[in-house]
């Protein structure tokens, strides 16, 4: 059955008017993550007045603009700082931060470490697209194994789950945009966790990173996830480097 009516999707009520079409490229994982997050909110029947969303810059920064949920964005690249401030002022609210490479590990690393040290209750959903899109496709601290348009990466990528665990995160998981159902269960668990929770979602940028032939576009990227990932719950986080093993390890690594 084909319909052509706007505003009839069951979760359109959680999107701001006029936000569709999204600015993201066809098949970009950010849309899938937002869809899963919104479905999870619907499913756990959380009070939406007690949820607040923050996001930073770049493609991922649009998330807070599109959701019809309270939002605590202040300005460019200090998403975690705003979220921590908001959480400390409103301890009843559940704060969810959508981050990308730039505002999580490049310019926001100090804020993140401080949030972990303070033990602030935050849910960080980190969408790892392996590249800086707006800054001329430069490599980021998490770019693994291949070259991008401008640069070749000679450094080891950051092991995000390990960093999160060392900073004191009480829930650490990693999924890809193919594993939406497991991501949903992870978000459900993390929403209940009373500490810092970090969920890394691997979603290589389709336009500037995944087109190098190794990962491929849209549906080939999903096949790459299918063939090159392995689920190991409880794996020690120091083994989770994306470069050192041939398969990307996913799962729930810390839950306490």
């Amino acid at each position, binding site marked *: 059955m084909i319909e052509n009516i706007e505003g009839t999707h069951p979760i359109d009520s959680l999107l701001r008017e006029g936000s*569709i079409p999204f600015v993201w490229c*066809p098949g970009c994982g950010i849309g899938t993550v937002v869809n899963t997050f919104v479905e999870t909110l619907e499913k756990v029947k959380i009070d939406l007045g007690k949820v607040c969303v923050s996001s930073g810059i770049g493609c991922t920064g649009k998330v807070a603009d599109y959701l019809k949920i309270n939002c605590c964005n202040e300005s460019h690249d200090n998403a975690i700082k705003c979220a921590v401030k908001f959480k400390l002022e409103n301890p009843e609210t559940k704060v969810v931060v959508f981050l990308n490479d730039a505002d999580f590990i490049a310019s926001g690393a100090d804020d993140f470490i401080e949030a972990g040290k303070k033990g602030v209750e935050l849910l960080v959903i980190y969408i790892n697209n392996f590249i800086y899109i707006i800054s001329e496709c430069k490599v980021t601290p998490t770019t693994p194994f291949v070259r991008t348009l401008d640069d070749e990466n000679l450094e080891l990528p950051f092991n995000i789950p390990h960093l999160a665990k060392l900073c004191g995160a009480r829930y650490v998981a990693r999924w890809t945009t193919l594993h*939406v159902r497991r991501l949903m269960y992870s978000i459900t668990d993390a929403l209940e966790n009373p500490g810092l929770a970090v969920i890394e979602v691997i979603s290589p940028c389709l336009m500037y990173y995944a087109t190098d032939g190794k990962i491929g576009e849209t549906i080939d990227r999903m096949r790459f996830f299918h063939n090159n990932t392995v689920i190991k719950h409880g794996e020690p986080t120091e083994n989770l480097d994306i470069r050192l093993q041939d398969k990307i390890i996913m799962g729930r690594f810390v839950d306490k």
Partner: protein
Amino acid sequence: MKFFNNGMKTPCGEIHIVKDRCKGCGFCVTYCPMDVLELSDEFNTKGYHFPEVKNPENCINCGLCEMLCPDFAIWSTLKEEKEVIEVLT
């Protein structure tokens, strides 16, 4: 061969597609476990091929297409529940 009904019911879904929202990525078509969808030969107003329902009676309302879609263009609703008839050989 024995047929019997153990009282379980299987859900039957109905698929809704907003074709002008679709960006033609094909995730729903590829990952539908029951092979319900196919990409149409037609274009929508943005110039993408949108999905069409090929086998409507197969849909089990699992909701995977709905969660995978990055553009909120497809969803399923429960139509009815059918009784399962298991076949033992």
